[in-house]
């Protein structure tokens, strides 16, 4: 018997609400969410189109944890029904704070969580969330030294001493 985990109150189906989707995370949590919340995801939309074609609805298995999935659902719920232009982060959904502001707070997480979210957003093809995560990563490393960037991104220096300072091959003068 699978555990049904409701995301939050807004996703509990009411009268006239959209159809439900069953998402299964890599840690085998079953999450029920309204279809139109997830319509921001191109990946989910394509799955749903497949359901329509075969008239069979089944669970959608996702390769990341429920912790990350819930975060993504929180994002999609916040912007439910709102058109997001990826390159216009200063726009504001009606009656809400500007996208950049809300997203900054939403993405105020540690590096590994940020990388997990961007990977999940990429997998689910949510362009606006990928963009916001990418902006957050860029903001973290902009103006930093190479050594500081390694620390922030958690990357090891894997150059040989000769390679380390080789000039850019394509860009001279």
């Amino acid at each position, binding site marked *: 018997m699978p555990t049904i985990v409701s995301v939050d109150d807004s996703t509990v189906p009411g009268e006239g609400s959209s159809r439900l989707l069953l998402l299964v995370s890599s840690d085998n949590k079953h999450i029920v969410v309204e279809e139109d919340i997830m319509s921001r995801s191109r990946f989910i939309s394509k799955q749903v189109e497949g359901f329509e074609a075969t008239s069979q609805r089944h669970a959608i298995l996702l390769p990341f944890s429920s912790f990350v999935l819930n975060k993504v659902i929180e994002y999609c719920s916040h912007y439910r029904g709102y058109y997001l232009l990826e390159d216009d982060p200063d726009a504001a959904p009606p009656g809400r704070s500007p996208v950049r502001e809300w997203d900054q707070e939403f993405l105020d997480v540690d590096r590994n969580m940020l990388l997990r979210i961007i990977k999940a957003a990429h997998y689910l093809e949510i362009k606006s969330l990928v963009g916001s995560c*990418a902006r957050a990563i860029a903001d973290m490393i902009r103006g930093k030294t*190479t050594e500081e*960037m*390694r620390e922030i991104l958690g*990357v090891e220096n894997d150059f040989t001493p000769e*390679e380390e300072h080789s000039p850019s091959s*394509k*860009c001279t*003068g």
Partner: protein
Amino acid sequence: MSSTTDHFSKLPTEINVNFLRRLDFRSLLACREVSRLLRTIVDGTAALQYIIALGASGLRVGSLVGPDTGSPECMAILDKYNTAWRNLEWTEHKILTETRDMETKWHLSGGVWAQLDESETAIHFYQLPSHLRGIKERQWVLQFDVKVETFNMDPSQDLLVLVHSKPLPVANHRFRYDLFITLRSLSTGDEHPLAVEAQGEDYHLMLDVGKNVRRSICPIQVCGNNIGRHVYDNLNVWNWRTGVQKLFRKCESFVFLDSDHVLVVSVYGHDTPTPSPCVALNPR
């Protein structure tokens, strides 16, 4: 167990490019040194190479006409731009000062030529056109209801700094000049929306009657958020968006090195210790 390194190196290339393309060229060059993976991506992505090539020419994404994809087409436009500078190839030739003589105050900054006319109440502007940068030729005049002593500008911030004065007769045939600084929009002449109301403390200068020293009053310079003004041996630098004073010191002359540093020229006696001529405005 996945290490932190794995998280990053397993990112799809599109994600790496997505955050890299939001960086300035200096940060991109620093990124090249981080790891083999990042170097391969930076060196192998046309759009990122374009950002670096633009940076090497003192330009940013969006500076030139055409798409910003790093396609051969936009590389060709950048090449044309650099060749034009290297060989000083003029695309246009025009005389701007036929009627107004060079004695009056003028500035050429950010591709805009500005000159105060003989009435000293109007500034004539001419925006230099550039086909490669997509800038159209434009001419406009701003008329003021005060006599402008001097001015300076930063077209990139749509900022015009006006200095005007009110002479007030005081005792013994002397005049008191009250200097006022107002920040206007370069394009409309209205108050600049980002400027705080009070700009530097107003100055009261005592000048002798008949002495025509007004022309040399108050050299003023703008650099980023800072405005520097030199009056009677005193340099005053403040942030025009916040009104916070950054520097006040006696000196002969000054120049902004960048938005954080000022070079000041001072005269000292043999035995006095000389402080550094380069002053940091935002000491770490």
